[in-house]
């Protein structure tokens, strides 16, 4: 990578930035899930590694969250943008050099940011924990260069129209910059009180709704048609998805604070808009599943399709939960319980991660022009992720329902803690399986780059998956 940072743009091989983004993403995924597993162990066994503030739960929990969101997920998004945007524009990436610099600045900045966060340098605001100089760095050195590269590639395309995926990429990179600059306004301008509380959740909601969800969906709009060879079922439904994301997903931030003293009209409005998130969700899921017509055998046979479709199928319970758990009728029971933790993992580890993993698998093989080193390891990775996640989700959902019952029946809190203990152990086991799967993945990808079978010109990696 270093030798390309100061090379001429023309001399940098196409796909270089996607490659570095891809490997960085996997490394951050290993780090992020490793931290998650360690944190879960501390919840099950509180005296596991104790007496040192750097291994205290309160110092590590947010590092796990930020490492998976801004390390794994966002870097995998950048990887996907670096190879999908030009592919769909029938052109080259606008600047590989900018992409490589972006990747370098991203890794350096995130390492610094997470080190500070680990030491306790926090703004005290959930999901926008980074202190404001880091927020500015993320906006100006990470997301703006990424956006410029995507927008310029779209503008310099050699196709007439713009495919669905690229609308989402171009819009989401713009939106995430806005979200970072507006959502961190309480830190930039020292806004206080309920304004701060509300904007904290405005940020948290929109970073999910206007960055993670649409980009993950955009990736599936590319990978499924590309790998199955079926055209997208409906561009019209894609339009509906896109516009309903912009309108319905950008508005319900207040539903995260249903029990805070925000204006009642705002909570009711947010709650209604929150249910309307089902519009883009249903549009997206049905569009992708209908694209699979006639190719369902690939769900079994093809690794990337299996990852993507599993992610899409998980979007169904995800959005059913998301649409209704924020209404007052349900929120009073499940708010601030393990149910929400399970839901957050269903969104980020279930739905979103499975889509990105597929894009990284597919993209890496395409760019490297090498077949996956070991399909068996790939399959083990899939099952470790799926079983690990399911164990986590089921145990945390049950724990959350118990906690909710404890809350409304006014059970002394310690009794809730006692009864949750077995679920905390299950949560740790599930998280550890995910971590183990990712270590295998990193090894598999590394070996693919070094020793994978070279794919002949004009063939696609997945066509050769079962050939020796």
């Amino acid at each position: 990578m270093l030798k390309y940072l100061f090379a001429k743009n023309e001399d940098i091989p196409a796909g270089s930035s996607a490659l570095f983004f891809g490997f960085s993403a996997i490394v951050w995924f290993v780090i992020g899930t490793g931290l998650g597993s360690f944190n879960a162990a501390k919840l099950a066994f509180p005296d596991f590694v104790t007496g040192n503030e750097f291994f205290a739960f309160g110092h590590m929990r947010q590092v796990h969250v930020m490492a998976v969101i801004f390390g794994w997920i966002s870097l995998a998004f950048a990887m996907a943008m670096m190879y999908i945007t030009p592919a769909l524009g029938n052109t080259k990436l606008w600047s590989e050099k900018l992409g490589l610099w972006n990747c370098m600045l991203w890794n350096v900045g995130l390492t610094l940011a997470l080190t500070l966060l680990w030491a306790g340098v926090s703004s005290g605001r959930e999901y926008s924990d980074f202190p404001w100089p880091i927020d500015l760095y993320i906006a100006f050195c990470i997301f703006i260069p990424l956006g410029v590269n995507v927008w310029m590639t779209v503008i310099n395309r050699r196709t007439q129209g713009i495919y669905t995926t690229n609308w989402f990429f171009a819009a989401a990179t713009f939106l995430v910059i806005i979200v970072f600059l507006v959502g961190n306004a309480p830190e930039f301008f020292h806004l206080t009180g309920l304004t701060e509380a509300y904007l904290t959740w405005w940020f948290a909601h929109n970073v999910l709704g206007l960055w993670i969800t649409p980009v993950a969906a955009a990736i599936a709009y590319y990978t499924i048609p590309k790998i199955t060879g079926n055209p997208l079922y409906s561009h019209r439904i894609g339009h509906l998805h896109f516009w309903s994301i912009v309108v319905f997903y950008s508005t319900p931030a207040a539903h995260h604070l249903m029990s805070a003293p925000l204006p009642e009209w705002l909570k009711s409005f947010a709650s209604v808009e929150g249910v309307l998130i089902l519009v883009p969700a249903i549009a997206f899921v049905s569009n992708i599943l209908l694209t699979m017509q006639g190719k369902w055998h690939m769900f079994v046979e093809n690794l990337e399709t299996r990852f993507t479709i599993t992610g899409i199928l998980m979007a169904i319970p995800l959005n059913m939960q998301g649409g209704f758990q924020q209404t007052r009728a349900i929120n009073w029971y499940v708010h601030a319980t393990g149910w929400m933790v399970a839901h957050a993992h269903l969104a980020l580890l279930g739905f979103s991660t499975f889509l990105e993993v597929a894009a990284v698998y597919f993209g890496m093989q395409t760019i490297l022009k090498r077949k996956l080193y070991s399909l068996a390891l790939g399959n083990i990775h899939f099952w470790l992720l799926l079983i690990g996640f399911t164990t986590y989700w089921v145990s945390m959902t049950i724990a959350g329902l118990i906690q909710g019952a404890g809350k409304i029946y006014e059970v002394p809190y310690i009794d809730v803690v006692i009864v949750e203990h077995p679920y905390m152990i299950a949560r740790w086991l599930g998280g550890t399986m995910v971590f183990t799967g990712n270590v295998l993945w990193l090894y598999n990808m590394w070996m693919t780059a070094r020793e994978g079978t070279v794919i002949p010109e004009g063939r696609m990696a997945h066509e050769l998956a079962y050939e020796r």
Partner: protein
Amino acid sequence: MAFREYKIGARMFAVCLGGSMIITLLFPSITVAKSTSSDVALDKSFYAGHESGFSLEDPFLLGWNKPLKVTLKVDPKTQQPMEQKTVYVYQPGTSFPASIIHPRIFGKGIEELSLQQGRVGEAKRESGAVFGFAKGAFEGQEYSYVENLTATKGWAPADVMRVAKDEDVLHAGAGKTMFVREGCWWCHTMLPEETQDWQVFGAPPMLGDFNAESPTAFGSDRKGPDLLHVGSRNSSREWMMLHFFNPRLVQPHSIMPRFDYLWGEKDANGQKIDFDKWRAEYIEYRDGKRVNPPEVPAYGKDSEIRYLIDWIMSLK
């Protein structure tokens, strides 16, 4: 982007996003800006100071640049006993709360009273100030307002600290910073919910309870009890001390981490704390080889755990 469709699309995008920003950012901020600080908000914002999270004045969240909450029993000028009064001491250089910098945050009546009767506009950061609360009426309605005691009574921060005993001083502002830094809010919410929840954890907060507070740190993932009113449920410093050193001493089933590292190097008597010995003896106790657990060292008066417990004691 030469297509007409894209021009229409870009404009539609601007309208949709702009509309959603107006509804979700502008409208709520109008309602929130009209709120009037409650007594709770006044107390919280004046003991916490300008900012409890990251700030350039306290970049590593060590409790720098924070005020002190002092219970005065002696008049700092005349040295005569007086009726007990809570004051907030901002040493020279300490940043003022957002509401002193922008008095609009107080809300209408309090803003007028604090500026005119309380003379908060005269407070200077360079020379420090002592604030207290008083009652007054504005347009026929009674409010608690903020009084700049340095201006109205001539009490300089140094005068107050000269007559205040250490047990009357709460490092609550530094303590809230410890709460943010140590991530207590990852497991303890600060928001009793508006359902049966509040019968155990106390009254849910009201609209004006947060003015000038930053960060509010409500928390969203409860793995321990809500703490908004914890000081009313349990006001024993002794219990807090044991519980922070090792929660399993007072609650065998607790999953809270140990915060023994907040004691620092030395105990209240200036003796070095032997953590390894303590932990070894605790394991013997846990395994049934000792009848009593080892003694928890008393914390020093400038230890971080003292700050944290001082803050917990202010959570009424």
